[in-house]
């Protein structure tokens, strides 16, 4: 070879290989053409020499022509001599080690964590790996749902199981991309197979397709076994992120049980400390997975951290998976209003129109269309009247309403006095009540000295009072101008103008005296006398309101006739409803977090705002913040609000779990409490499916053409074989064309000349 290289005047030390290259030889039509031309040429050579009788000359000519034809073909194929410098590459083997949290789970009876099986195997096979590394390039990776390159597992001792999620499909997909065209001859996978992304024990179709198309054998080594593995786990809680108050919330819970025997276990759902429901689940030896449907009905709005627990039994491998916290935001889907009208009137008609057309209101109306004194001059069968379902409304379903509205309604002939107590209890427990004026309301409705009077923000007195049929302009209480009920326009000046232009009212219930703790928002002022028209009050956890006139509809229809708009009437009633049902924006003490859930170690920001009962900001308000966690209740801090009535506080929760933050303050002798719930999540998903998934590891090996083995003290990596095809890589080369030089053309010319000469000598032209 060195001589040949030297023949071409090249340095022989620069090259270690030589080869001949042809152009165009890879094209099929070139070969077909050559075959055709060769056949044609041979036929021509033979037929053109028929007249030559000397066999020697004939043979000589055919040889000459064949030689010339060969030279033409050679020039056509453009031969090149290539001198190369190349060297051999090592094939690769990827070694993947699962470092997720599930690898810390112990295997029985040795009580050895799964991770230790891997460590042992690497230590024992250190020599095998070293010899393997002489032949192959070994690439080491730690895998979870990511792949992390590490130098080697000589450092296996510092390898720890702390990652939060196993996802083989993601891992192999990344690996496939990473290697691309590189020569990967095999993968050694060390794992427990506890892949969280796979719902059953078997391989997923995505992973199956990925591995089947990859053509790289994966040899899976199973770390740990399920032998004597005892565990009861809440594997999954499937619930919507939000639910509706007073509407059932459904949960689908998956429980996993290994070696738990036959027993009944209680499944307990709690909201904080309150048990919402308990369900008994029958665990049977032959079944390892259970699906349980649970349902509960939330009665409180806001973010709630629910915890689902199963008992912890002695000898369980994993403790953390016996409890699962999850968060559901309970919202109001519809505002449920019970609207009782003492008699049909314009006021009730326009209010019903607002309520019935409101997209978020579920309205149940009752109009008293006839009284016992009325003579309908008809049999009942010809009337559309229905019995008034008092027991259903005020006993069975009262708590399903958000607001009870009595409009010019006298209870006496229709409602038993005992039901008034139910209404009082309903309000004290967080419901809302409003009484709208008219000749059948307040004292004239017989409410004096009843339970209803106790929840009204006004005292009725004992003497019957007249309903004064007089027109008047409503006078707002200046001090209450920031009250949310009076906000008909966002901007203060615009709001004032709207109120100044409101139509006059006519008709007022007299003799009402606002309670000391009530807030009178508007008055009818006659001379030196003031009569409350719009009064709000707080009763226990609920709210109440009175409107001492039956002419608010003037702000709708009549307002339009006076060139105004009826929309403020609608807005006014929306404001009233929002305030009555305690919408968060109408609270005097507001407490919120900047996020609804936090990761462990993340900082929590609490924002607080305090208002006076008239909704003016409460500066310098002292707010006590306390926190309740699983560990108990503790004080966080005391805060003071700024001139805008606002304060904030940041802290970092010490542990994962649910947190209930309570804020307490006092404003104008009104004790205010507010609480907010949020959760701090620590990822424990790896313990939700803690079993070793040997089926998955076997299938991975099968599909990819690799082997499966359970790691033991005897595991020998040398039993695994890998193909090792030679891979050469060219670093430099020199091409010398053999066809475009004088030698080639001279030979052709000489051959043709000799052919011509012999033919002339033989008497041919």
């Amino acid at each position, binding site marked *: 070879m060195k001589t040949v290289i030297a023949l071409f005047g090249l340095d022989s030390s620069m090259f270690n290989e030589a080869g001949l290259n042809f152009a165009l030889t890879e094209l099929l039509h070139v070969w077909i053409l050559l075959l055709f031309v060769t056949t044609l040429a041979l036929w021509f050579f033979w037929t053109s020499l028929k007249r030559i009788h000397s066999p020697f000359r004939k043979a000589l000519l055919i040889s000459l022509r064949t030689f010339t034809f060969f030279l033409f073909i050679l020039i056509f194929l453009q031969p090149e001599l290539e001198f190369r410098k190349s060297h051999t590459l090592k094939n690769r083997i990827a070694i993947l080690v699962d470092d997720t949290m599930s690898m810390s789970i112990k295997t029985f009876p040795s009580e050895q964590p799964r991770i230790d099986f891997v460590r042992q195997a690497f230590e024992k096979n250190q020599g095998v790996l070293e010899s393997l590394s002489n032949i192959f390039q070994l690439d080491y990776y730690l895998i979870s749902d990511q792949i992390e390159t590490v130098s080697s597992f000589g450092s296996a001792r510092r390898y720890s199981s702390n990652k939060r999620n196993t996802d083989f499909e993601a891992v192999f997909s990344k690996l496939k991309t990473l290697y691309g065209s590189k020569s990967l001859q095999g993968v050694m996978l060390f794992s427990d197979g506890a892949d969280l992304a796979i719902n059953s024990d078997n391989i997923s179709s995505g992973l199956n397709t990925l591995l089947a198309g990859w053509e790289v054998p994966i040899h899976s080594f199973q770390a740990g076994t399920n032998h004597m593995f005892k565990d009861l786990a809440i594997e999954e809680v499937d619930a919507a992120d939000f639910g509706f108050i007073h509407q059932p919330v459904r949960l689908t819970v998956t429980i996993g049980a290994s070696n738990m025997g036959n027993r009944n276990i209680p499944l307990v759902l709690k909201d904080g400390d309150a048990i919402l429901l308990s369900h008994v689940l029958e665990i049977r030896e032959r079944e390892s997975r259970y699906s349980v449907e649970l349902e509960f009905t939330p009665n409180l709005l806001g973010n709630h951290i629910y915890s689902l627990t199963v008992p912890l039994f002695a000898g369980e491998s994993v403790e953390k998976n016996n409890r699962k916290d999850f968060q559901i935001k309970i919202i109001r889907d519809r505002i449920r209003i019970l609207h009782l009208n003492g*008699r049909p009137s*314009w006021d009730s008609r*326009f209010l019903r129109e607002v309520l019935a057309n409101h997209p978020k209101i579920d309205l149940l109306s009752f109009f008293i*269309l006839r*009284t016992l004194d009325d003579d309908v*001059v008809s049999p009942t069968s010809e*009337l*559309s009247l229905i019995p008034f379902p008092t027991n259903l409304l005020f006993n069975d379903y009262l708590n399903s309403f958000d607001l009870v509205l009595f409009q010019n309604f006298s209870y006496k002939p229709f409602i038993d006095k005992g039901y008034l107590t139910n209404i009082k209890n309903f309000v004290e427990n967080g419901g809302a009540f409003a009484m709208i004026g008219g000749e059948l309301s307040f004292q004239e409705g017989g409410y004096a000295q009843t339970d209803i009077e106790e929840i009204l923000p006004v005292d009725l007195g004992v003497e019957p009072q007249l309903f004064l049929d007089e027109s008047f302009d409503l006078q707002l209480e200046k001090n209450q101008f920031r009250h949310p009920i009076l906000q008909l326009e966002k901007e203060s000046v615009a709001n004032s103008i709207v109120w100044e232009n409101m139509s006059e009212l006519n008709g007022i219930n007299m003799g009402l005296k606002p309670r000391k703790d009530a807030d009178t928002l508007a008055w009818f002022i006659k001379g030196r006398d003031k009569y409350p028209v719009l009064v709000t009050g707080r009763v226990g956890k609920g709210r109440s309101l009175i409107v001492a006139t039956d002419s608010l509809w003037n702000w709708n*229809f009549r307002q339009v006739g006076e060139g105004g708009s009826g929309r403020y009437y609608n807005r006014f009633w929306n404001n009233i409803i929002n305030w009555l049902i305690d919408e968060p924006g109408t609270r005097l003490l507001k407490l919120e977090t900047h996020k609804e859930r936090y990761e462990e170690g993340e900082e929590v920001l609490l924002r607080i705002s305090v208002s006076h009962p008239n909704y003016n900001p409460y500066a310098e308000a002292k707010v006590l913040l306390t926190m309740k966690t699983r560990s108990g209740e503790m004080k966080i801090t005391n805060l003071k609000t700024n001139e805008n009535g606002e304060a904030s506080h940041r802290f970092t929760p010490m542990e994962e779990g649910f947190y209930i933050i309570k804020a307490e303050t006092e404003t104008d002798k009104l004790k205010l409490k507010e609480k907010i719930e949020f959760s701090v999540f620590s990822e424990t998903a790896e313990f939700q499916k803690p079993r070793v998934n040997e089926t998955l590891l076997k299938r991975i090996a099968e599909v990819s053409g690799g082997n499966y083995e359970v790691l033991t003290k005897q595991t020998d990596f040398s039993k695994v074989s890998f193909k090792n095809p030679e891979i050469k890589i060219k670093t430099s080369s020199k091409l010398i064309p053999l066809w475009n030089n004088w030698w080639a053309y001279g030979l052709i010319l000489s051959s043709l000349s000799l052919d011509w000469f012999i033919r002339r000598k033989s008497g041919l032209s």
Partner: protein
Amino acid sequence: MPHPTAIDSLLGQIERRTSIETNRGLTQIALSYPKLYRYPFIYMAGSREFEKFSANDIKRLRNYLSYGGFLLIDDNSSGINSKFDISVRKMIEALFPQVPLRKISRDHSIFRSFYLINRVSGRKQVSPYLEGINIKGRTVLVYSANDLGGAWARDKLGQWTHDIVGGGNRQRQLAIRLGVNIVMYVLTLDYKKDMVHLPIILERLKRNKLP
């Protein structure tokens, strides 16, 4: 107005039969009356052709009805296609050119707002149905061609001022019931279509052969 006591008489019946409180004084107003919107219910009756409403009056009335008012038109003449009827239809066409006057169906709340009614009547039986205009789901105008006012009207001594043509006292009672129901509908709208009422109303309608 051919029957000036008709409305007062109807209000008396409403007072007697239902829980509605009425203001018995009848106020006659023009559409240009500045305090028009203090009266959400207008009763318009006649027996003769009337002058075309001015464009301003038509606009006022349209706004009045669109924003919550109600108009009951009663043809007090005794004929089919009376001149009053022709004038009314022209007026309504100008009032709501895009919304034609339609027959009010028998399942409309007007026929079940207080009494369960299966038959439309008045002093005469000119038309077996009421007609009306619906705006945004609310019937804002009802037109009766049967002289309802004639069946309602009484004199100062409380005697009926007009005889009923065809059906006698029963027909008068039905006309009064229809009047009561129209007023009840205006004050309660589709209240009787709330789900809580439906089972009982449908059962009664099924069981009883109603007038």
